[in-house]
């Protein structure tokens, strides 16, 4: 073989031979999770529209409900906005929690997960990283909706500072609640199925709640449903916080459902995730 070595052939050979020596210890779980979180943030950077996708519906509802029904429901649009906005914040973040599952399913269906899984690193890393990035996503979408509300005239009685504990509580709720969608994402074939099924869960949860109206005028059976709806419990706790009168009992009650969901669907997700496909 007197043929001259081709440039790419030589380059490939050199690339392997020049591979840096890597410490036998693979990166630790925390650093793996942070790296995957960085990946998720890069995706938001390249496609910032994914943040706007999830706030379009809440903003539309805010504008529509406030100006169309606000006067009739609460006497004035201003009074209704004061009532509605904390609920809309919750709705925004609950909607956003679908995204972890949606992106997880997208990754799997694209095959990039095969590479991740063939790496000798802490295997739940991609999920942990996605959840870390979700904190950013929840906070960003919450802030966007809050700013829109403020521009429309919303003023939290507890002062603007109250939005910080409110966002923290909503993050905690959404991180627990999101496990339903990660488990769902690992059980169905396509990302759009995740979305469709998620809407079937989210629509009744957000409408049969106290987000839009005071349940006092609803029939008794519906009041019973609304009063145990985890979304209602969260909205009540958030309204207290935004009003400057946080209630420890209400906050604990709000965290009960996401805690249970995480306790059940967390292990289910991990089981589905580790199960070889």
């Amino acid at each position, binding site marked *: 073989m007197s043929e001259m070595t081709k440039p790419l052939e030589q380059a*490939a050979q050199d690339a392997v031979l020049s591979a*840096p020596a*890597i410490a036998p210890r*693979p990166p630790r779980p925390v650093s793996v999770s942070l790296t995957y979180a960085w990946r998720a943030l890069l995706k938001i950077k390249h496609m910032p529209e994914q943040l706007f996708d999830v706030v379009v519906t809440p903003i539309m509802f805010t504008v529509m409900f406030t100006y169309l029904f606000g006067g009739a429901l609460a006497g004035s649009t201003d009074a209704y906005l004061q009532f509605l906005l904390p609920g809309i914040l919750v709705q925004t973040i609950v909607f956003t929690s679908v995204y972890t599952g949606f992106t997880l399913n997208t990754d799997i269906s694209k095959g990039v997960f095969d590479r991740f899984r063939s790496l000798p690193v802490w295997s739940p890393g991609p999920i942990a990283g996605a959840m870390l990035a979700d904190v950013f996503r929840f906070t960003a979408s919450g802030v966007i909706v809050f700013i829109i509300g403020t521009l429309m005239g919303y003023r939290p009685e507890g002062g603007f500072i109250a939005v910080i504990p409110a966002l923290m509580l909503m993050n905690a709720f959404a991180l627990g609640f999101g496990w339903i969608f990660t488990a769902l994402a690992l059980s169905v074939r396509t990302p759009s199925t995740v979305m469709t099924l998620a809407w079937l869960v989210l629509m009744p949860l957000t409408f049969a709640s106290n987000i839009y109206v005071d349940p006092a005028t609803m029939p008794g059976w519906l009041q019973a449903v609304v009063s145990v709806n985890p979304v209602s419990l969260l909205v009540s706790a958030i309204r207290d916080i935004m009003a400057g009168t946080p209630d420890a009992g209400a906050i604990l009650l709000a965290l009960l459902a996401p805690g249970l969901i995480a306790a059940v669907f967390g292990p289910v997700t991990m089981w589905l995730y580790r199960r070889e496909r």
Partner: protein
Amino acid sequence: MTAPAIETTGLARHFGDKRAVDGIDLDVRRGEIFAVLGPNGAGKTTLVRMLATLLRPTGGSARVLGHDIEREAREIRRKISLTGQFASVDEDLTGYENLLLLSRLSGLKGSEAKDRTMGLLAAFDLSDAAARQAKDYSGGMRRKLDIAASLIRRPELLFLDEPTTGLDPRSRNQVWDIVRGLAASGTTILLTTQYLEEADQLAGEIAVVDHGRIIARGTSAELKAKVGGGVLQIHLTSAERREDASRILSDMLVGEVRASGNAASLNVDVADPAAGLAALGALSAAGIALTGYSLSQPSLDEVFFALTGRPPEPENGQESGKDDATDSEAAL
């Protein structure tokens, strides 16, 4: 002392009733390029996914680099790299970000990770595209990025699952050059392919799989001895002379003369190029005009026909041999 790169015994994976891999015995020595040749749905990808610890077998056993694929997956993952069938790059990220991500996950820190990323992009001619999202890459660029991502560390064993399926001939040649370079560096490579020509070009040893089983195995020369050296295809100026041409070819060559899809074309197996040339001379002497001819490696269809007496499953058979007839196309 060192264990073989791959050793499997009766390795099987059934999905319900479907026997994707149905008892495969394989041994791959270190330092060689081993090709698994077969049509779509033959079980190639399932086999690779089991060996790369992504899928549990339902029967048999396998050791990769001396480690059991079920009990020592983590050890294996440390030593192998996988380039999956569909380029497993993150399309939303740029080429640079893709490699930086995997460098960090491989344990490189800060500037080390950046240096390795830049080095690999340069090696594979992707520096100019580094800041573009991978979804805007051509198929060939994506493949190169994908292979680069497998080389952040130095793998002892590299799996390439259909590395050139869907690539144009130029990109395919580039991937072949890369694979040869990797082999020259001492990396053991197991590649799957639908093209006999690819296996012939790259691999020391070839296993032909069908319906999850190995149906033939050997070096490229051994396989070709079974299958026939190549296929001479002639295109007649006029279909009327087909009978005459067929008779002349039958007289001159050992192989059976087969009709091709086109009424004015004929295919015949030839043991070596000289025999083919002599047959062309005889046609010319008989005054049979040709619009063209080609002498190509047998396509996968023909390999299968020779080995099993039937073409591969109709659903995949049409595409598989299409790219093989590029060897010596010439017009008269």
